[in-house]
């Protein structure tokens, strides 16, 4: 019961306390306007390059944008506590660490899915890209799965934040890797072979492929394998991130580096 309370109530309180995103003056520019313009930017770049249709960029960038809250928020979870000088008291509590940290991931995942939907709908309207009504529900599932896996990936970055003060630089690098490698703006078969191979082990790649197939008319059952692969990759990153978090927590206690990182 306590673990459930830590998971749900603790997650919600941390979301309200640690992120400025609840302020509309921050939420709207950061998580609505900027993502929509990212899609437009790459759609226009794609038109100039004569590479793919607008729909390719709308789906690709909207799904990749799910990584934005997932990656950054999980990092802020640690760095925000340190900035508020509550990291040490937090880690001194006997709360179950899985409930503590995974609970923080839950509202972030919902946020990621919301931002993804807003950028998909906003940019589709501006670029006159349409999706058949029958694809909307399966697309929503693909978005939810991708948001979840990106948040799992973000947990890895959050863990690094326990040891590295400027983990935000690493998070930017991870975000950039997803943008370049996952077939967001360039089809995987047009990237170098080794890049396509690396993409198979990254979040977004399979969820994005599933979303594009759904938009082309595939049913949810047809892309179940891709969505399961996306979930498995996200879960694997979450597991590694959680293990790293526990290890670095122990090391920080042992070396007394919790506040000095």
């Amino acid at each position, binding site marked *: 019961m306590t673990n459930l309370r830590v998971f749900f109530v603790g997650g919600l309180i941390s979301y309200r306390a640690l992120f400025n995103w609840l302020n509309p003056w921050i939420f709207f520019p950061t998580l609505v306007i900027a993502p929509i313009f990212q899609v437009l930017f790459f759609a*226009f770049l794609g038109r100039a390059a004569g590479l793919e249709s607008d729909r390719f960029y709308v789906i690709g960038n909207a799904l990749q944008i799910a990584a934005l809250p997932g990656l950054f928020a999980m990092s802020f979870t640690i760095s925000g506590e340190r900035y508020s000088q509550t990291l040490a008291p937090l880690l001194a509590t006997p709360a179950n660490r899985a409930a503590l940290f995974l609970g923080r991931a839950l509202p972030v995942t919902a946020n990621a899915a919301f931002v993804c939907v807003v950028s998909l709908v906003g940019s589709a309207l501006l670029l006159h890209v349409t999706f058949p009504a029958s694809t909307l529900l399966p697309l929503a599932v693909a978005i939810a799965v991708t948001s979840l896996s990106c948040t799992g990936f973000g947990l890895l970055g959050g863990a690094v934040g326990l040891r590295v003060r400027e983990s935000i630089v690493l998070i930017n690098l991870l975000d950039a890797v997803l943008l370049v490698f996952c077939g967001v703006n360039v089809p995987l078969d047009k990237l170098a072979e080794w890049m396509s191979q690396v993409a198979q082990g990254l979040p977004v790649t399979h969820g994005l492929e599933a979303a594009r197939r759904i938009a082309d008319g595939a049913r949810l059952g047809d892309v179940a394998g891709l969505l399961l692969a996306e979930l498995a990759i996200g879960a694997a990153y979450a597991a590694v991130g959680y293990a790293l978090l526990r290890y670095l927590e122990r090391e920080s206690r042992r070396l007394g580096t919790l506040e000095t990182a």
Partner: protein
Amino acid sequence: MRALRVLGVGWLLHFKIISRSPFAIGVGVTWPIVNATMAYFMYRAGGHAQTLLYASLGSAVAGIWSYAAIDVTGAVQRQRWWGTLELLVGAPVPFAVVLLPIAIAIASAGIYALGATLVFGRLVYGIPLPLEHPLAFAVAVPVTIASIGVLGFALSMVLMRFRAASHIGNSLEYPVWIVCGLLFPIAVLPVWSRPISWVLAPTWGMRALLHSALGGHPWRDIAVCGGLAAVYAAIGIALVERFIDAARRRATLSLT
């Protein structure tokens, strides 16, 4: 003379500060390289390999604008956090003379983005930098940086009353990249957007760098860049005096 000294010392001090920021340099150099890489892949895959230098220079100018849009608009708020805003406003020089070099120094960190993008393009993709007008290029770089910095200064004055100024500035990053045609020609944009691009320094800075490298009339572009910087400075100075007066009268400088 004193104003010139404040401008010079202020620029040097803040350029040193930003040059030692792992976040500013790490992120500021990473994204232009990433954007250049994306553009290289897209243009190559689309069969337009001749536009790679365009992508390289465009990513660098986009990086300079990112510094101006995000860090310059957050400069006043940062001084609030540091508790130095009141001291700077109370200094016996106009506040604009204090803030202007901060804005230009932040945009000057874009020189790292420019250098990194050109070196990356050369080493990884073998993109040469043919300098048809080397002198013009040497002049275009600082003029472009300064004009974009001054644009950031004017923007920061418009957003001075907002605590979330840098977040609002952040949302202007992509729109300016788009409308100024930094990574693709503005011909792909709707016609109504062109007049907007004409009043934005990144458009002319990009053209100045491109024409200096590939041939054309870079001096005209440099002159327009300089002229726009003067207009932005005039707007920014007019606004800063107005806002500072209002903040003193209402005791709202700290926005608390």
